[in-house]
């Protein structure tokens, strides 16, 4: 089974432009994340999927300079970008990881992919439905067949833009599996390791300052949690965004997510609910 991990990245984030190029311990955030993904034990190819927009030339350059493969595809249809890349690479299994998770735990990647391969007849596995790991450890695994079917059938702009919601919303068509964190805890709404806002970046930068050791194996999720146990004030840097998820804007469209699964961001509080 040839497995491909795809990290989708673009530089035109509306809330924090060029965030993936911001430095963490002397290297771009995207490269730091690729290093962490590369530390997973599972055998897979790793490719950054960016867009054909000139604004993303910098992502191509940074990725190649760091020694990783890069692919350019549709600027807004992420489902198409994933599909075209998977076809080009002739893979059996595609793993989708967003590029705003610079603290992603290699063990979480291994756990989700491993569970997917151990289960028989599964089209899609993730650790997101419901989530339990700290937010920013998003791993979604799907068969090429499931990706191709979603690519052929999904028509909602929202499904095209985010790749996997079509699978989430059709448990009648796909066999779905959720991987829960072994600890039994759910830190997805209290611990935010994803980068969407300036404060998120400040938090992650502080974690790297505290834990990063040059030329050493990447620090683990356990190391981060131990740091936060000793320095709980670090969580206050971006506490107002804890529990905020991107799909809060699509609650009316998503069948599998409700307001109970997310919080509104401070800037949403005066906006009408979707």
């Amino acid at each position: 089974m040839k497995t491909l991990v795809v990290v989708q990245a673009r530089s035109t984030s509306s809330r924090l432009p060029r965030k993936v190029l911001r430095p963490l311990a002397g290297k771009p955030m995207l490269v730091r994340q690729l290093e962490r993904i590369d530390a997973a034990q599972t055998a897979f190819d790793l490719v950054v999927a960016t867009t054909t927009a000139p604004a993303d030339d910098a992502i191509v350059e940074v990725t190649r300079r760091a020694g990783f493969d890069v692919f350019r595809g549709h600027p807004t249809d992420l489902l198409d970008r994933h599909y075209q890349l998977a076809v080009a690479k002739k893979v059996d299994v595609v793993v989708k990881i967003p590029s705003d998770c610079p603290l992603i735990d290699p063990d979480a990647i291994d756990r989700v992919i491993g569970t997917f391969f151990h289960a028989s007849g599964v089209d899609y596995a993730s650790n997101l439905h419901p989530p339990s790991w700290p937010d920013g450890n998003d791993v979604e695994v799907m068969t090429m067949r499931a990706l191709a079917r979603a690519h052929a059938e999904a028509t909602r702009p929202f499904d095209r833009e985010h790749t996997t919601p079509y699978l989430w919303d059709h448990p009648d068509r796909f066999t779905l599996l959720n991987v829960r964190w072994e600890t039994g805890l759910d830190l997805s709404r209290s611990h935010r390791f994803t980068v969407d806002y300036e404060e998120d970046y400040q938090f992650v930068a502080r974690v790297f300052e505290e834990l990063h050791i040059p030329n050493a194996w990447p620090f683990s999720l356990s190391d981060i949690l131990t740091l936060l146990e000793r320095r709980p004030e670090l969580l206050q840097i971006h506490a107002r965004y804890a529990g905020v998820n991107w799909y809060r804007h699509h609650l009316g469209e998503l069948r599998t997510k409700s307001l109970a699964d997310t919080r509104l961001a401070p800037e949403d509080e005066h906006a009408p609910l979707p």
Partner: protein
Amino acid sequence: MRRALFIGGSVNQTKQVHAVARELREWKASFTPFFGDRGVETLRRLGLAETTICGDKLRKRCLDYLHDHRLEVDMYGARGDYDLVVSCTDLVLPRIARRGPLVVVQEGILDPPGLMSRLCQRYSHLPRWLAGTTLTGTSGAYDRFCVASEGYKRHFVAMGADPSRIRVTGIPNFDDCQRFRDNDFPLRDYVLVCTSDTRETFKRDNRRELVQRALHIAAGRTLLFKLHPNENARRSTAEIRKWAPNAHVHASGNTEAMIANCAVLITQWSSTAFVGLALGKEVHSNHPSDELRELAPLQNGGNSARRIAQVCRELTRRTRVVHLRTILWGRPSRGVA
């Protein structure tokens, strides 16, 4: 190399699981401060578990101990995939511990039964930790429960524990009390009072009555109070100063050394009564003295950790066989020998 997760708690409990880990040299050991399930963690974040081993204060002490001893910390067992979990209690068991194999080590003396323990036994949906440590050993969620003495084994069986899963090993912090005689604590032949954190754990405590009883027993001899580490030291010190102005008050220090040098030991609900008994002291406790003698931990020259490690080895060897049987003939029930 096989991997074991040791779940600590108070410093006493953490020392115990550390002692077991030291004996399991062929295993890769990771440690975590105590943590619970989602409900318990929610209480902790709300600050409602602060006086328990789930609270931030005791977790920090545990982490400090782990760092001071350069032990590998795996917070919450986040790395997962453990071949063995060793916990200091079964009152709260996170999911990672329930996956087994799980060995629980008795921490020491237990809270006496009361209304809350009867309610928890009657209404099984109530969390057993509401009754303090009274219902320790009654979860049935462990594969092996290593206890302090034959007396405790009888006690746990009477409480409903499965005798086939209980092993009388002794417990590491209370199995070699003679060694406490070798200490540099400067005082001798005083009357020592070891207080309990009863109020901090939401139980009744008539502190004034305790101080007056201590003054009566001391009958003019030097009186020394050693406060429980989880106690509000400022409040308790002020109370003692008011009712026994000449007494010495120690909020910290080596309790066992203080017991070794005393003439009389007065305790409330504390495991220190066992140390006093083992050292032949005159002991006054809220627990009946006959009961204490029956329950007193084995004095085996400090071999409890080694015995518990052996229990872990036997269990995990057996678990491998059961795992093979499971593959061949289906799932066995937990703990079936």
